[in-house]
């Protein structure tokens, strides 16, 4: 077996040192009845690299990839161009095959990168601080709700109707067990987010309001009045960003006084990967840092006075605090955070803002073209690179038909909100720098034909 360096003479020599006659003697504590006498039955034996590659390649070929079709899906995962050097750098063995930097003297690479990542994320989200990343946006969102409960000592969270339905679903699942009360509603196909409705719900029991920015339909709203309303009732405003590229174009939630800003960082560096692994972003105001979940990297000096970095404030975490920890989270999304950070460094502020411009301009153009199709309406008044169309018919079968023609048209709201008839005609379309004008035209003509 190519991954096992031990030879049979090695094994025998080692058994002699141990004083065991056979390998089986080392498993003596396993009850006889539970010991298998040979390889697990019904499973194939080892295979060569070539054979495995054939098998996996055959499976890969069964998928229609984003790169080979006009592609318009978003809703929490976006297709962006990732510069080639990102993937090269994250595959350096010292990054790829390192562990959590518990021995900081020989992990300064990971630690400095995390410090840079935390700063990039905090600046992007507009928060004072950010952690070293969470699993993904949906789990970061739930962690933020729990954090708000710890801070406010209140148990009712108001979730905006524009919050990604999977994020709502995760929160609902967790709240069933923690006893948090969640106020949730499905969105309506209207031009603007209704922040007044949210504001009206805030009361003295409210721990937080959770609002997505831009929201699931792509809409954008000024969060300042909402932040003020939250703070007037001593509740926190949590903003969720699923498309961080947007913050190159629009004011960040932190700049609008959100207390906790979480996000999905997949857009930068990570790629689609059928949903994971992704990278959760988590930032907040300074005063709440001790209530944050997840790893934090901090600056310090070594015994010789040289600058260095360490994991810090670990007493919040499970390996020390055990049942009193702020979260049970044990890993971050290290390698994806690295990819995010490298991509962000390559872009820099100038690049991010250009990228955001290209995305927005493309989306504006596509929205105009698609809303010219008879019967198709553009729902949004505002959007960044993603908007919602209202079709004259149910969107889900239309998406399937377009997929049969090799066009990945967008996300039907029927898929995201099964059973919500009022949303069934909604189609969320994302346009990024990878979308060409030809792609838009291909979608527009095909859509027009199908709807005719």
């Amino acid at each position, binding site marked *: 077996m190519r991954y*096992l360096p031990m030879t049979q003479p090695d094994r025998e020599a080692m058994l002699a*040192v*141990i004083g065991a006659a056979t390998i089986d003697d080392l498993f003596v*504590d*396993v009850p006889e009845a539970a010991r*298998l006498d040979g*390889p697990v039955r019904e*499973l194939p034996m*080892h*295979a060569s690299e070539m054979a495995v590659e054939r098998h996996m390649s055959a*499976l*890969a*070929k*069964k998928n*229609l990839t984003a790169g*080979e079709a006009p592609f318009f899906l978003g809703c929490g995962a976006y*297709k962006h161009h990732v510069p080639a*050097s990102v993937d090269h*750098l994250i595959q350096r063995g010292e990054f790829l*095959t*390192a*562990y959590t930097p518990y021995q900081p003297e*020989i992990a300064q*690479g990971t630690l400095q990168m995390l410090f840079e990542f935390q*700063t990039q994320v905090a600046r992007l989200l507009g928060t004072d601080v*950010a952690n070293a990343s969470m699993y993904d946006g*949906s789990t970061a969102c739930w962690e933020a709700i729990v954090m708000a409960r710890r801070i406010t000592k209140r148990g009712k969270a108001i979730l905006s109707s524009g919050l990604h339905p999977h994020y709502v*679903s995760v929160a609902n699942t967790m709240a069933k067990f923690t006893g948090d009360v969640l106020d949730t509603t499905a969105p309506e196909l209207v031009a603007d987010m209704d922040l007044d409705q949210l504001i009206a719900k805030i009361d003295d029991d409210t721990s937080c309001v959770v609002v997505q920015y831009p929201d699931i339909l792509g*809409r954008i709203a000024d969060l300042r009045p909402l932040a003020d309303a939250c703070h007037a009732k001593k509740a926190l405003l949590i903003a969720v960003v699923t498309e961080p590229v947007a913050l190159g*174009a629009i004011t960040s939630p932190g700049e609008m006084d959100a207390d906790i800003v979480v996000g999905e960082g997949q857009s930068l560096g990570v790629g*689609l*990967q*059928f*949903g994971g692994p992704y990278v959760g972003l988590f930032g907040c105001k300074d005063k709440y*840092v001790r209530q944050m979940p997840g790893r*934090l990297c901090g*600056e310090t*000096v*070594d015994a010789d006075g040289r600058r260095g*970095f*360490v994991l810090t404030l670990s007493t919040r975490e*499970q390996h020390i605090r055990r049942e009193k*920890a702020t979260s*049970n*989270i044990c*890993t971050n999304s290290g390698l*994806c955070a690295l990819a995010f950070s490298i991509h962000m460094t*390559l872009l*820099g*502020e100038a690049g991010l803002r*250009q990228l955001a411009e290209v995305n*927005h*301009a493309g989306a*504006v*153009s596509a929205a*105009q073209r698609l809303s010219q199709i008879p019967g198709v309406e553009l729902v949004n008044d505002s959007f960044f690179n993603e908007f919602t169309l209202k079709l004259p018919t149910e969107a889900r079968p239309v998406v*399937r038909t377009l*997929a049969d023609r090799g066009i990945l048209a967008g*996300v039907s709201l029927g898929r995201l909100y099964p059973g919500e008839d009022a949303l069934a005609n909604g189609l969320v379309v994302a346009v990024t720098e990878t979308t060409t*004008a030809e792609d838009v035209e291909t979608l527009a003509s095909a859509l027009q034909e199908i709807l005719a």
Partner: protein
Amino acid sequence: MSINQSGWRPTAPEANTGGVPASVTGNKALMLEEALIFEIGDTHTTGVDFEFLPGTGRGTIRRMVEGAVRERAVLGKPPSTSCAGPPPRAGEDRLAGLSRTAPIGLPGLSEPETVRHYTRLSRQNYGIDLGFFPLGSCTMKHNPRLNEKMARLPGFSDVHPLQPVDTVQGALEVIHQLAHWLVTLTGMTSVAMSPKAGAHGELCGILAIRAALEAKGEGARKIILVPESAHGTNPATAAFAGYSVEDIPATAEGRVDTAALKARLGPDVAGVMITNPNTCGLFERDMREISDAVHAAGGFVYCDGANFNAIVGRVRPGDLGIDAMHINLHKTFSTPHGGGGPGSGPVVFSEALTPYAPLPFVENRDGQFVLVEEETAGEHHAGSFGRMVAFHGQMGMFTRALTYILSHGADGLRQVSEDAVLNANYILRSLDDTLDAPFGPSGPCMHEALFSDSGLAAGFSTIDIAKGLIDEGFHPMTMYFPLVVHGAMLVEPTETESKAALDQFIAALRSVAERAKAGDPSLKTAPHFAPRARLDETLAARKPVLVWKDPAPLAQAAE
């Protein structure tokens, strides 16, 4: 002859007899210092070219944006050139009046600077590729590069989680095939693939237990029993799921005190969380008996599967009465640790817990792979406790783990656990004359060897041995865990080390341990040869500096 004009007169090198001056740069040949991106970059530089640069634009969107660039437009003064269809309304974007006006403060680097920055940083890290990484409980085995290659096939890496299922049949089949392997290897009934990491998997298992109890009208059970030697995630998870945690004592030989555990069982106990093999490196012999007792008392058994590498292919947890167990794909199945994630923690379930497993999951219906989500769960999976994550879990880890599993096959995986256990016992018995092995007399260990700091000179502790090992070129073992052993050193060699690598490590640990026992003061200041000396963690925690703060605003500094 002609005279040597260049002045270069090669001679044999001289040995250094005096001191060496520090370099001006702070660099030491191959050991290169690297500043922060905030110190070397600026907000005007970008390492990415966009297609709308003059002369390269083609297509509607690009023409439009090209126009915008010519006008030096920033957002808020939107693009205004024509495109197919009517042009955007002049002077308007669709950003709700929220166009960014303030700078963000994100430094950029050109591509060569970027590559050099991260390459230099990488060289300040220790990784499995570089050397032996015997971090107990973490299973730092070789990460095959075929895994990486397969995960990057566009058919896996470039598909969107919400594509119509007909367009992602291969992706769903990967999930299904890996699920089949995991269920079969563990002798369980089903598996939830979506948990994002081990701790997330623990939560998944505990939530399924709670859902099952509530379905039986036994939601009043509020206690989870956890051994003192457990990973910190176990009690943290149970608390997160709303349970109170009670410790189970251990026996003198390092195993769960079965009698004490049985005595504590009752109508208030929801279940137990047991790590098997346990964190002392021992197999819990009474596991079946414990499971039967817990079931008889109406509770469920969660097994922390962090140490599955010790038994994969030889023991099926299903045969031990386990109800739920997470599997760290980044441990047993070789997906990279990546400096602390991403992980992946699928959870296998017994028949009793299967109805409560989370959404989504993949089913094979006559060759067609179906994604069961909220919409269709009601048909035959109404008991599911719900969704734990957006989308479907760590696909990028599934492709790697399946690649690894197919490479090994059933026979190779059996060899994995055999070699992992053999290597750990070899280390245990090669060093138990030098270091105290508190459970050495309990018999063979599984895939980890555990030592204590007993017998070190006054003032010396495990951390000094760990830092000494760094100078010897090794990543240290896990320190001060499990908590039940004073100054614990948990050594997990894994199966991917050669005997020569183990022998070198044994010699190094023996030497460092002898120095600690003799009170060698130079050990207190180790490491001496690493990029940094010991770091001041007290300072970091007392006055946390968690983000870079510009001495002057970045934009100004750049000008």
